[in-house]
């Protein structure tokens, strides 16, 4: 099954696989960076202009305007950049949790079964339910959403890392280091961590799209942020009320933009995996 994905074909086919992968990563990262940086430059309280409310897309307002006359393009970009911030926060925190738990599990068999139990416990609760409960308990707001998403997305990565650490632990050089009297901490730091670092890195990036989707789901359901703040979920939820009036642009553009951002992260993650883990590059 030697099938290169669509984004590695065509225009850049003269480049070798490694160059193409790097180029893809650089380009997608650039787009995301541009969205993020321009988002941070937009004030949360977007200017309203009731004279131009509910206007369909035009050159002046690329994505149209909403019921308070706010420019939907700015609102969408701001919403996406908020999604990215929440995505970064959540995936970094969840990777840290996953790493710590994976190493804790490798200490002894009691801790290992405890971590396995914890994984099973969190995996058995539907994500969206967990996110809602945690974000309410933490007093809502962007902080609550970040922590909630972080605390529900470490499960898969932990499972992968735990298995990896377990495998490395049985290798001869680890046993040898132990015989030489090296502490467990030293082994973890010097032998195991460098080997799983690429897994952690790729795992972090692959949590990203999950985190963004879940962030927009909870804000769509009305948990988390004030309804005048620009989050993609809020924008989509609000657009529902105006669809009957024919204001399709309120849902269409933000929805497509969200889809694109999620896809971009997915592309970066896939390509990074290919770089770090050449043995799977052809999968």
């Amino acid at each position, binding site marked *: 099954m030697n099938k290169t994905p669509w984004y590695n074909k065509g225009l850049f086919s003269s480049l070798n696989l490694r160059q193409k992968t790097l180029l893809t990563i650089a380009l997608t990262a650039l787009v995301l960076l541009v969205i993020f940086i321009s988002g941070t430059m937009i004030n949360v309280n977007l200017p309203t202009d009731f004279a131009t409310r509910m206007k369909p897309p035009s050159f002046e307002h690329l994505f149209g305007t909403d019921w*308070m006359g706010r420019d939907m393009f700015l609102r969408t970009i701001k919403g996406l950049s908020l999604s990215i911030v929440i995505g970064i926060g959540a995936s970094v925190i969840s990777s840290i949790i996953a790493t710590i738990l994976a190493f804790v599990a490798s200490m002894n068999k009691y801790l290992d079964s405890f971590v396995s139990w914890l994984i099973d416990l969190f995996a058995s609760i539907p994500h969206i339910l967990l996110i809602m409960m945690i974000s309410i308990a933490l007093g809502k707001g962007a902080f609550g959403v970040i922590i909630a998403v972080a605390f529900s997305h470490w499960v898969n990565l932990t499972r992968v890392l735990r298995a990896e650490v377990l495998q490395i632990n049985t290798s001869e050089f680890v046993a040898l280091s132990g015989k030489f009297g090296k502490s467990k901490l030293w082994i973890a730091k010097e032998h195991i961590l460098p080997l799983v670092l690429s897994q952690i890195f790729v795992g972090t990036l692959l949590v990203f799209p999950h985190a963004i989707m879940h962030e927009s789901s909870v804000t769509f359901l009305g948990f988390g942020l004030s309804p005048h703040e620009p989050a993609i979920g809020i924008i989509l939820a609000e657009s529902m009320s105006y669809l009957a009036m024919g204001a399709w642009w309120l849902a269409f553009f933000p929805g497509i933009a969200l889809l694109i951002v999620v896809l971009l992260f997915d592309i970066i993650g896939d390509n990074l995996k290919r770089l770090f883990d050449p043995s799977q590059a052809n999968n």
Partner: protein
Amino acid sequence: MDKKYIIGVIVAVIAIIGVGAFALGGGHTEHAANELVACVAAHGEEPEFGFDPMHGWGYHDSGTEPLIQSTILKRDKDNNFVNDLATDYDISSDFKKYTVTIRDDVNFTDGSKLTANDVAFSYNKSKELGEGADLSSLKEVKADGNKVVFTLEKPDSTFINKLTDVGIVPEANYNEDSYGQNPIGSGPYKLAQWDKGQQFILEKNPDYYGKEPCFDKITNLFLDPDAAFAAVKNGDVDIAEVPVAYANETVDGYHMEYFDSIDVRGISLPTQMDEGKLSEDNITIGNNVTGDPAIREALTVGIDRQALLDGALNGYGDVNYNGVADQLGWSFETDYKDGDVDKAKSVLAAAGWNDTDNDGIVDKDGQKASFSIYYNSAASERQAIAVAVAEQAKEIGIEIEPVGGSWDDIDPVKYSQGVVWGFGSADPMEIEHQYDSRVAAVGYDNPGALNDTAVDSLIDAAMAQETNSSYATWSQAAQQATSHNPFLWIGTMDYTYFVSDDLDISNSTHLIYPHGGDIWGNIYDWNRINETATE
């Protein structure tokens, strides 16, 4: 794994478009001419405890129609009191005793006779549960033959309003847990069916003693605003209440009718400084920015209300400067120009608020003129008001952060930050709830914690005066109170309805429209215009 959520998004987008397409298309559903299908309700909400007046059904702010039950008095289109169950009433000269004679020809829909005992029971029960009308001044109520005697704790000339507020339930077999599902009343309609979360169906009460309504059956749907508008587009309903955002739409076969209401929107501004004072339920009272009268005055004169209403309410509203709607007997004029930014700036400067650090926001003694305005995120007009006020305030150098949330989020800050409120009762007792220092920071009363004994004594004086002459005193009390600007009043909002072209809702006989009011008050005058047109 990685494609799963991408597919999820695509499905979601398609679903949204599908729902939209469904809402836009569809055909007309026919129903008989003597049946009315409506989508209106007080606040657009389903009553949580069913149709039980003891739990607040038929009452939000004084002036609503319970339909299933009768009340002692009703209001007419000019807001005068007219008899419903009463044949006569007498008020003692000290306004502490109200004696009402009850008609003796009224039966409940279960066939039993409605007596003075049932009336007394209903008022006692309503006071005991405390979920509907404000009966705080009522000491006791007793039946005496065909008369009911209300004895009050203190003189209260506004109590006559309370005689319109409580639907009468039968004492026999009344059960406060189950009555709401199977209400027995004596009003023009009886409940035929209640599908929770969907609709209720009323049928005409054949034994009703008053004017017979035209419609034999009323089906009222509980729909979200967008679904209500979609129902109008489909022709599924005869009348639907829609938010003002939809008011400029046109639909074939329907016309827009809107009613000026006395439902006024205002933002409470804590009048006291935050000195660590707590309310009875341990909520902080006061704010160091709005506690300065200059800040409150600057906002009151500096906000351009007309621009705000044109935007936030689509123009369906009237500017209001003092919280008392023009239709009420105790309304009064306010003598300042709206949106006077220059004056607002000079008021701030005179009080020592200057922009020392050139960030566009004034400050004084190291305190930046910055506070939050909370709004109920379920109400889009309140969101628009909060956001638009925040934007306008920036021009006069005051920084306002709008924050949306549920009432659970708002409660902990309701006495220490700005909150967007809706008020509007046909009962002048509202003034007491808004400004009296004795109810300062109690529940939703006097959230700005205004403390002015002159206001209190004017309120006491008004309560001891005959209803009509008391209005001047109520007006004085409100003027005295608004001179401190405990609220930033914005305007009254109109209620907008899509009405089928073959339905006459008798626009000329509508009752006064309070906060959380409904449109049923003149159901007796509604009619089909051309009965052959429907079927």
